[in-house]
């Protein structure tokens, strides 16, 4: 069987860093090849090389056995290569059909003619029908759900006639049901004779969808395994590279495994946070929370699960004073703070680890010390600030240990450490953490989880919003599920199976 796409000794360096180091593999029609590896292992760079976004320093790419040099991504696309990006590249005010044909618009009266909207809509409908991705070509993307948007992304690639389709972390924001549907779509693409590259760090999903698994570490391809019979633990060890050290923070095979923390016993049932019948609207003015009630106790970690856009963000913002409540009541330690703004809530001991670190939580243009100083009020005393910064840097192992360095110059993991140092360093009573481990490598993930656990052990209540159900099961005491702005269910962490959570997330069990 001739492979459609071949990589032969591809290398690419950025400065002194060899991001991709002599990687070779072959991909045949009807095959799903999964690329796995830690953050920074070179997965995304490799994809970008294959699809013409970067040019390789060394090595070559062969398509149908012939060596090709991509002058541009458009060049690769014209030869039948397409990528479904991790973050959607959609234009919200435009329709589905307009988004799909953008850049290769069909025209009336030949090349110079006006845009043939009807033909675009017809063709998109045809492709959608053929590939089993039902969607209304005339719908505005702004009004679509996350899963539907991803469908538009896939349609974009297919409408352009891709024979090789690459998926970059496609299930990040999807719930279990949507993830499963996506996996089915991927398998169907392969069955239809296309070749698929599937980049993910969710090993169970990878094993479910791929025929082979290629493991990248530090830019090198360290192993290629048949998916059948491959064990997640082995792959994880290959990814981390240190076979002796047990990989921390890896997804656990089953809930309640040996490494999960011992059940914490609570002394007095002190309620830190009480939210009753909370309702609020999202940025567009649509209802986002519709009567959510929650109570968090000291020392407790409560996970919030749900498909993206079901009110998690708004819940976190309501709790931290960033979004006003339309109805309901918010109490922290028995004090009514329904109308309090962020400043007052923070003064009352509420800490916030927001989802978008560098834009939502940290100030990239300011120094480490200044970022830390912004966590608490009071006049600035330069000497004290430097001392406090030095202490925080030591306590949270922020590298490099330079208080004067700009936050934007830190690596992602160290940025998150800085954020935690600011938010957890002042011994908060309530911690609201949103996707605190997203985008971090495994070691940094483990560190973040450990810090959250410490905060809880120190008496804080922690609300953890995450899409990663394994993570929630690992460190939360109980998990509440949000769907369409309502709490559709709650389960003790050890009883929360994928199936049960999935049902709750889809709202079916509500």
């Amino acid at each position: 069987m001739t492979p459609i796409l071949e990589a032969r000794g591809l290398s690419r360096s950025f400065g002194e860093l060899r991001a991709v180091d002599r990687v070779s593999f072959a991909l045949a029609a009807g095959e799903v090849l999964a690329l796995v590896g830690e953050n920074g292992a070179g997965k995304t760079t490799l994809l970008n090389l294959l699809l013409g976004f970067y040019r390789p320093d060394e090595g070559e790419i062969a398509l149908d056995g012939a060596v090709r040099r991509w002058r541009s991504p458009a060049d690769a696309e014209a030869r039948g290569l397409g990528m479904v990006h991790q973050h959607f590249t959609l234009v919200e005010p435009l329709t589905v059909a307009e988004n799909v044909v953008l850049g290769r618009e069909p025209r009336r009266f030949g090349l110079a003619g006006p845009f043939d909207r009807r033909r675009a809509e017809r063709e998109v409908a045809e492709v959608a029908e053929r590939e089993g991705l039902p969607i209304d070509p005339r719908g505005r993307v702004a009004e679509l759900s996350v899963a539907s948007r991803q469908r538009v992304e896939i349609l974009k690639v297919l409408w352009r006639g891709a024979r090789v389709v690459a998926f970059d972390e496609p299930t990040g924001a999807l719930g279990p049901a949507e993830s499963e549907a996506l996996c089915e779509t991927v398998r169907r693409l392969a069955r239809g004779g296309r070749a698929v590259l599937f980049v993910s760090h969710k090993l169970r999903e990878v094993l479910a969808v791929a025929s082979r698994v290629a493991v990248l570490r530090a830019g090198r391809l360290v192993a290629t395994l048949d998916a059948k019979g491959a064990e997640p633990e082995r792959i994880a060890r290959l990814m981390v590279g240190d076979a002796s050290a047990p990989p921390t923070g890896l997804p656990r095979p089953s809930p309640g495994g040996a490494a999960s923390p011992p059940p914490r016993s609570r002394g007095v049932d002190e309620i830190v946070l009480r939210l009753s019948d909370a309702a609020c609207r999202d940025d567009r003015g649509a209802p986002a929370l519709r009567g959510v009630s929650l109570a968090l106790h000291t020392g407790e970690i409560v996970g919030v699960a749900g498909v993206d856009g079901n009110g998690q963000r708004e819940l976190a913002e309501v709790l931290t004073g960033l979004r006003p409540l339309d109805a309901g009541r918010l109490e922290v330690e028995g004090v009514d703070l329904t109308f309090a703004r962020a400043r007052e809530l923070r003064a009352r001991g509420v800490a916030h680890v927001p989802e978008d670190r560098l834009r939502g939580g940290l100030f990239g243009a300011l120094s480490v010390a200044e970022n830390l100083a912004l966590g608490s009020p009071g006049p600035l005393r330069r000497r004290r600030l430097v001392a406090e910064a030095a202490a925080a840097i030591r306590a949270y192992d922020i590298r490099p240990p330079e208080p004067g360095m700009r936050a934007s110059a830190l690596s992602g993991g160290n940025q998150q450490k800085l954020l935690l140092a600011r938010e957890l360093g002042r011994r908060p009573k309530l911690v609201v953490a949103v996707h605190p481990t997203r985008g971090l490598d495994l070691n940094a993930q483990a560190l973040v989880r450990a810090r959250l656990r410490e905060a809880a052990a120190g008496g804080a209540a922690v609300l953890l919003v995450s899409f990663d159900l394994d993570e929630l099961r690992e460190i939360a005491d109980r998990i509440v599920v949000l769907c369409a702005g309502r709490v559709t269910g709650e389960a003790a962490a050890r009883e929360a199976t994928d199936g049960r959570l999935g049902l709750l997330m889809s709202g079916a069990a509500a």
Partner: protein
Amino acid sequence: MSELTTLVVSILAFAPPVALAALGGVLSERAGVVNLGLEGIMRFGAFFGAWAALASQSAWVGLSAGALAGGAAGALLAALAIFAEADQIVAGVALNLLALGLVTFLLEWALGAAGGITDPVPALPSLSLGGLGRLPWVAAAAMLLLPALASLLLAKTPLGLRWRAVGENPRAVAAAGVSVRGLRFFAVTASGVAAGLGGALLPLAVLGRFEDRMPAGQGFIALAAVVFGKWSPLGALGAAVFFAGAEALQIEISSSGGALAALVPRGLFLALPYLLTLLALAGFVGRAVPPAADGVPWDPEAR
């Protein structure tokens, strides 16, 4: 003659420069680049339009030169904002400051003793309306036609689709294999051509000569018209018409000689159009939502 006719004629005579500059602003901002340099571009368009018209003794040559100069100024702004990755507002301000000093100098250097004001320049054809004066129909036609054409371009052509897309999400355009920088460069240059045309109309259709103070803030009014018109070509036209109407109304009220004019200080009348604009922006229009990527520089490497 009814006051209404007066109002309409005044609008048709004085709105075109602002309307075309505002169209330029729309074209640029719909592609994601804030054009704060409209004032400077109009100034270049007006000056070079007048100069070329004087040199060639043809208003049409002047008009083309104004458009060309505007396009060149737009391209300079585009180069700063897109390729040099300057802050777009800074780049626009820089262009305004450059136009201010340079045109003052060129005016005296190139047009000699005339000093602050040039000789009368050849005028574009106009229609006599008797006591109402002359209607510069070329300018009025351009004001009505060009926004309509731009509207069609944005709504009905592949280029327009990309144009709107690059102002909303340049990443999507890049992913579709279209050059974001190329598209934006084109858009800002086109924006300069429109604003340059608007500027050239000042000497060629409105006042019959160039003077050093031109365009006397009309580029900034155009900027407000872009927002007021909610970033649509026809909306900007409507806003320009509204401003010209407010100005005409102000003159109408203050020259009616009535008790009102005697009581209310003239400064208030002069400030009225700006006050109305501010009030409109603050309340009457509701919240206008700019293109999502408006003012955001395209940095392909940014995460």
